[in-house]
């Protein structure tokens, strides 16, 4: 990035020139916006010039389907073997034979799984973690969601290691060849993360079939990028001294990588693992739509019947699995490797032996005591009626007040803003964005942004794209306005932080679908509901990064400030905030990307933008249309990301932190 930044105008003259160019672009846009008739082809993209990307992509997909189905199906068959095994082991049981001669080897008993989880927690994290893991999984049994929880868990257990290994491999490649990283890996990751899964669901179904395998691949596709990023970042951050030391100690290349670089990059890698687990669990709703079943399916089914409580319980089960897996994986990774042990296998692995014994024993017992296979209904309980009663109570008592607020916001802010965005002239927006790109990142960035913006217009999807921009923009603004202060508050008090962290963890992992339907009951379908759902999801990084950014301000700087007599406010305003600014901006960047990711969910409560376009394509099984709409969403995200990254870079350089 630094070479781009150098070519940006930086002298005083250049700075005035830069301001001038951006101002001119804005002026041109304003003219096109106010009097669109003078140069109407530049205000509204002419229909005659729409390039039929839809049909091209569709044709490519059809060709792939006819010529490569054998390959994709073979791959699907390969992946299916371990997946089926995990499904059978944890949830379905192994079925042998057919018809009346069929008999089933039961799945692992819930008691065994709960005990082993607690035991794992104890080994790696002591009593606290043991309680968390054990009670967490026990609650899945008690709330009677065990079966589908295990389906989801099986998918995650097979998927996550796969994502981690692939992510590591690509990350290492990216570290050793920066050019590949910059021109191939990074753009690919951007696309994978910003393109909504629904957009490539149809090609996925055609190539890999409606089976858990498709679900697994879609999950992997979405969840691997953070692992790659974390690996590249972690390896690049390893201090030069450590690398030199490895060379001096006479390490071979592979020794250097495995024994020195990767262990040194461990903190970054752990963040990657955490994100893989979280994102994989984010996908459960979608994977349930293409054949995986599990908790996501429970959520969908319950909501179709307006069983809000059941949906909420299934959603919370996803959160429980996420929290347990996350804390456990962190604890496992923190554990120091012990010295090599030369005892016999079983002696070395008493824990493994014990765990297997517990599983076998409880499972065998479940043949005799069916309660160990499936807990009888009389022992399970549900909180569902309370959720429903709570929502009903709010509906009956507070609807009118909420309605007044909703109408006020809608009529005074959202509707006019939306109309404004819809009328934005495409050429003007292209000019402004390109000018900004040039100003912040030089010619290279300007060119990339101009091409991406032009693509959005040339697909003929300009108006939906602007509607998307409007909703995401407002959502990101609100999320930042709420999230940054909360993050600041967290950074100043450990107690607040301890309360807020589990809440944002929940917001990130609970499927938005669970709470979006109750929100509809209070706020009706439409933009306000969509906004609430989007903000609830995208506020998470704003809080997290702000908190993290302020907390990592070097202690010396703070002391220097105190010594020179800063008041608390000055310390915050002049030292902490400026130093943490790049981190906060990254949080805003993530907030924007997450808002974009919610566009699809918003389409489910009646917004009309690119999300709806993707849905229409899905219902018509039109692969080309879905992918093109998905690309436009992705490009909006990439443009925002590039501009903010360039801005952060400039800010860092100005503060001498690059």
């Amino acid at each position, binding site marked *: 990035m630094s070479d781009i930044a150098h070519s940006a105008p930086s002298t005083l003259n250049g700075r005035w020139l830069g301001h001038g160019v951006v101002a001119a672009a804005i002026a041109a846009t304003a003219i096109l916006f106010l009097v669109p008739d003078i140069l109407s082809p530049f205000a509204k993209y002419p229909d005659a010039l729409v390039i039929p990307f839809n049909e091209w992509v569709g044709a490519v997909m059809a060709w792939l389907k006819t010529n490569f*189905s054998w390959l994709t199906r073979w791959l699907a068959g390969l992946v299916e073997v371990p997946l089926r095994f995990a499904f059978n082991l944890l949830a379905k049981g192994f079925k*042998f*034979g*057919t*018809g*009346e*001669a*069929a*008999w089933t080897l039961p799945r692992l008993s819930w008691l065994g799984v709960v005990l082993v989880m607690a035991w794992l927690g104890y080994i790696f994290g002591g009593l606290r973690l043991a309680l968390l893991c054990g009670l967490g999984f026990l609650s899945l049994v008690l709330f009677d969601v065990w079966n589908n929880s295990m389906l989801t868990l099986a998918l995650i257990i097979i998927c996550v290691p796969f994502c981690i290994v692939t992510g590591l491999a690509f990350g290492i490649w990216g570290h050793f060849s920066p050019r590949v990283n910059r021109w191939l890996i990074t753009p690919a990751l951007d696309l994978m993360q910003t393109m909504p899964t629904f957009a490539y*669901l*149809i090609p996925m*179904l*055609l190539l890999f*079939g*409606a*089976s*858990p395998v498709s679900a697994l691949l879609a999950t992997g596709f979405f969840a691997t990028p953070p692992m790659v990023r974390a690996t590249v970042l972690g390896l690049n951050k390893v201090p030069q001294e450590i690398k030199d030391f490895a060379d001096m100690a006479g390490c071979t290349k592979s020794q250097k990588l495995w024994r020195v670089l990767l262990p040194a990059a461990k903190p970054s890698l752990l963040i990657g693992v955490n994100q893989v687990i979280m994102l994989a669990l984010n996908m459960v709703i979608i994977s*349930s*739509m*293409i*054949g*995986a*079943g599990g908790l996501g*399916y429970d959520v*969908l*089914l319950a*909501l*179709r*019947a*307006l069983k809000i409580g059941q949906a909420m319980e299934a959603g919370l089960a996803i959160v429980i699995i996420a929290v347990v897996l996350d804390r456990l994986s962190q604890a496992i990774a923190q554990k120091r490797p012990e010295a090599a042990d030369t005892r016999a296998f079983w002696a070395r692995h008493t824990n493994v032996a014990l765990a297997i014994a517990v599983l076998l024993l409880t499972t065998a017992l479940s043949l005799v005591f069916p309660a160990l296979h499936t807990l009888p209904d009389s022992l399970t309980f549900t909180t569902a009626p309370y959720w429903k009663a709570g929502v009903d109570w709010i*509906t*009956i008592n507070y*609807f009118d007040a909420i*309605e007044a607020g909703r*109408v006020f916001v*809608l*009529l005074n802010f959202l*509707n006019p803003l939306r109309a404004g965005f819809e009328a934005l002239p495409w050429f003007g927006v292209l000019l402004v964005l390109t000018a900004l790109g040039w100003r912040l990142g030089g010619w290279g960035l300007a060119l990339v942004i101009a091409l991406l913006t032009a693509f959005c217009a040339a697909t003929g999807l300009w108006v939906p794209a602007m509607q998307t921009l409007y909703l995401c923009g407002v959502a990101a603004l609100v999320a930042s306005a709420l999230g940054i202060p909360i993050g600041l508050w967290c950074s100043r008090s450990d107690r607040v932080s301890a309360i807020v962290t589990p809440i944002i963890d929940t917001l990130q992992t609970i499927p938005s679908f669970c709470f*979006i*339907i*109750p929100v*509809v*009951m*209070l706020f*009706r*379908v*439409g933009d306000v509901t969509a906004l609430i759902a989007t903000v609830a999801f995208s506020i998470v990084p704003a809080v997290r990064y702000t908190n993290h950014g302020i907390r990592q301000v070097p202690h010396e700087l703070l002391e220097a400030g105190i010594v020179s007599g800063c008041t608390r406010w000055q310390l915050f305003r002049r030292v902490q905030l400026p130093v943490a600014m790049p981190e906060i901006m990254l949080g805003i960047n993530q907030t924007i990307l997450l808002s974009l990711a919610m566009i699809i969910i918003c*389409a*489910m*409560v*009646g*917004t*009309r933008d690119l999300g*709806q376009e993707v*849905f*229409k394509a*899905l*219902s*018509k*099984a039109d692969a080309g249309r879905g992918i093109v709409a998905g690309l436009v969403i992705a490009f909006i995200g990439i443009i925002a990301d590039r501009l903010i990254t360039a801005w952060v870079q400039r800010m860092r350089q100005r503060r001498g932190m690059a």
Partner: protein
Amino acid sequence: MSFKRTWKSALFAAVAVAAPLLAPSPASAVESNDPIKIVLFDWTSVNLNSRILGGILENLGYTVEYPTGDYLSSLTTSLTNGDITLGLEYWDTTAGEAMKASEATGQTERLGTLGPKAKEEWWYPLYMKEKCPGLPNWEALKDPKCAEAFATAETTPKGRYVGGPVTWEGFDDERVEALGLPFTVIHAGTDAAMFAELDSAYQRKAPVMVWVYSPHWAPAKYEGEWVEFPEYTPECYTDPKWGSNPDKAYDCGKPFGDIWKFGWAGMKDKWPVAYKVAKAYQIDTNELNAMSGQIDLDGKSIEEVAAAWIAANEAKWKAWAQ
């Protein structure tokens, strides 16, 4: 040597134990042990039908799996290549075009009707009749006072009608225009959102006009009526001259029609008997509504209700397999 021998005998023993388990047993002489995949969607009645038919086929010795799928796109993706063998509820009212597209591929087959008739239309709770006494006749909605009774702050003076997702073949925007109704059409993105609006309004006895369809639990749970529009004919949708508005099509109610079963075209040859059963499978409307009620309102599990039906109707399904 002795080590080798023990190893070998152990292997033989293992094979001897495993063989009868793995080999297909003669008791179930079905054409193929490959699983028949009956898709589950995200509403109750279709899943109930899938479990009933699946249960019957299991009783006949077939292996049955129940993958989850997406309603409209399954017709032109998974059903065409056999990833899904059977889908039991495709409604004329929402999937008409998708079914035609599916048949056009030549890789799927329409397996006849399920039995119950699909009905969908604009629907209002009974308490709204006081404010708009001319209902259920649609002409009452043309009265501005009546429309205003259905209005919210942002649609005033027009009434607010919550229609289905844009992906459903609803044509409500066209209908409002063709019939000159003073209503604004709001599209709910999913039907869960649509019924959430209904539930919220019904609890508050607040005005609501919404798209309701049957068979569904909603008409059983809430008291209300369908608006009576001029009856649908295919010409109404295609020929502007038809109906009260000579310049526009869609000047009539929504289509009603059948619910269809679809199968993968290869099923006929691979599992002939199962194919015959799937084709013959039908269910009575009242029976289906009663069973859906047991599940959605009384809290029984789908599997339980399906098993009860199979046990009670053994003679019926045994005849289908003949």
